[in-house]
């Protein structure tokens, strides 16, 4: 049954349904209402869980790392500067191959200071070695949070569930919260294979010389690539229980015969969907929802794009001095096709700039107008800049 819930509140309920044993968070800006809601569930006695308020995000990540190594199901959430402050520990968690789930409520990073939504924070730690799944709406955030524990525990890899800050976290909409029985059936009690145990001592995260470091990296890389199958099956199995599909690695919608696709991640997909209905373009257009950014689903993407002429990638982050981040990976993946589509890459909605429906014709204009370079911030207002910066 649909309930009217704020995104953060819904995710807090989803986390609670996963029966976490340790939650650590730094409870001030840039935090979300997620941990605030969870702390209330704990304080009200509705969730039996150790809730540890720490003094920084570095400590939040460190506490969940320790807790997971001690065999607990652990959770944390952060965003923006908080993610950056966690960065060192995020690499450690991934390198030790510890199953932890965290929510990144995507927000811009400083400087200039911004509290609003874009995806620069999670993109900045894309190389940390975590699985990264992006949510298009709050229902997906709920379902992906639950799936994330399943994926993390079966792969022994940490999973970052990325949901747009404000645009999802602070939006109230209709959300179906599964019941405890459904989640328990999907997510049995977990025993970490390398739980720290004084009777059976092992070392983790120790010094590794050049003779084994490369192999550790290779193994980690392979493990994340191999997680693709687990991400797909986690979604299928959750479909069987909940009746809802979240889109596996990626999903494609729109007319079969379309030769153009727009690929995006996160909540802008809903706006694009509405735009396609309200401002129907002259030619059929598909939408590709990229859900898994790490692992990057190269083969699935190739299969989805093999008959296309144009792929327009829209993202909410950039690598200054290079251009789009997702766009570059899409370009690289599709270059393996015998007749690759042209890839056009745009960023929009940085630091919370609203993305209106009118973005659709702007994106599609690339098909008829000469392309000025590989990447462009499509909603920049150059008039606001001095001439030399335009």
């Amino acid at each position, binding site marked *: 049954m649909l309930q*009217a819930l704020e995104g953060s509140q819904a995710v807090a309920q989803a986390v609670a349904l996963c029966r976490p044993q340790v939650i650590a968070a730094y409870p001030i800006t840039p935090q979300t209402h997620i941990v605030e809601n969870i702390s209330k569930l704990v304080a009200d006695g509705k969730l039996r869980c150790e809730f540890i308020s720490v003094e920084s995000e570095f400590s939040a990540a460190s506490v969940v790392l320790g807790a997971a190594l001690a065999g607990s199901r652990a959770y944390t959430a952060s965003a923006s500067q908080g993610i950056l402050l966690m960065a060192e520990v995020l690499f450690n968690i991934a390198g030790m191959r510890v199953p932890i789930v965290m929510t990144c409520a995507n927000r811009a990073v400083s400087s200039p200071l911004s*509290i609003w939504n874009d995806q620069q924070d999670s993109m900045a730690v894309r190389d940390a070695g975590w699985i990264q799944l992006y949510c298009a709406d709050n229902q997906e955030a709920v379902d992906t949070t639950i799936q994330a524990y399943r994926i993390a525990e079966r792969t022994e890899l940490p999973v970052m569930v990325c949901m747009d800050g404000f*645009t999802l976290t*602070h*939006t*109230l*909409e209709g959300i179906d919260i599964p019941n405890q029985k459904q989640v328990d059936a999907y997510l049995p009690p977990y025993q970490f294979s390398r739980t720290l145990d004084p009777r059976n001592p092992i070392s983790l995260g120790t010094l590794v010389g050049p003779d084994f470091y490369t192999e550790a990296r290779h193994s980690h890389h392979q493990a994340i690539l191999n997680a693709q199958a687990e991400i797909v099956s986690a979604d299928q199995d959750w479909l069987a229980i909940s009746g809802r599909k979240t889109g596996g690695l990626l999903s494609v919608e729109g007319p079969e015969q379309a030769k153009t696709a727009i690929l995006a991640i996160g909540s*802008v997909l809903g*706006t694009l969907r*509405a735009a396609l209905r309200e401002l129907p373009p002259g030619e059929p257009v598909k939408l590709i929802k990229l859900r898994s950014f790490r692992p990057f689903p190269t083969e699935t993407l190739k299969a989805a794009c093999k008959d296309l002429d144009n792929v327009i990638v829209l993202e909410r982050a950039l690598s200054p001095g290079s251009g789009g981040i997702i766009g570059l990976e899409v370009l690289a993946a599709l270059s393996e096709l015998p007749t690759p589509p042209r890839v056009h890459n745009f960023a929009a909605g940085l630091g919370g700039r609203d993305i209106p429906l009118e973005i659709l014709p702007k994106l599609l204009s690339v098909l008829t107008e000469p392309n000025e370079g590989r990447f462009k911030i499509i909603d920049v207002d150059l008039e606001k800049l001095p001439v030399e910066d335009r």
Partner: protein
Amino acid sequence: MIEIRIHGRGGQGNVVAAYLLAMAAFEEQRYGQAFPNFGAERRGAPVTAFVRIADRPIQRRNQVRHPTFLIIQDQALLQVPGVTDGLKPGGKILVNSSLESAELSKQLGQQAIALQATALAKKILGRPVPNTALLAAFFTLTEMLSQDSLAAVLQKRFKGDILEKNLQLIQEGAQQVPAGLWKEKEEESNAASA
């Protein structure tokens, strides 16, 4: 699909008003979406919240630029540039104001309905929080959603004394404006796509 924009000041319960409105839609098996446009929030600063109500799931997440209805929680905000921008032709404005509707409309240069929501709230709640009285008046004017649904969502959001007083406040607020005055707006908007 109906689009509503709420303008107020930090501390006036803007986000709560938007959430209550969207929640009420679900009480009647419709769909709602509500979200704030946060600034660097602080008490007294102008804030905006957006609401959509529709008969099918709402996909878009852009800000409401062309609302059918504006709810203004502080009449002084009418002087702030941009507050009434983008109102659809024939769109309606409800204002928390100490003036009569005729005088307010004259000052504003367009039709608006005034509700003395602060005075009502002070009388019943003992605090100048105008949001629930305005919602009650809005529900009466539009008859888009029932007062029962507003009462039901208040019961989900509040409890105890605050709930009782708010239930009393919405009863009074609902009686201050002409019932169904804005009713046709919804039917027109429904003809447009969701």
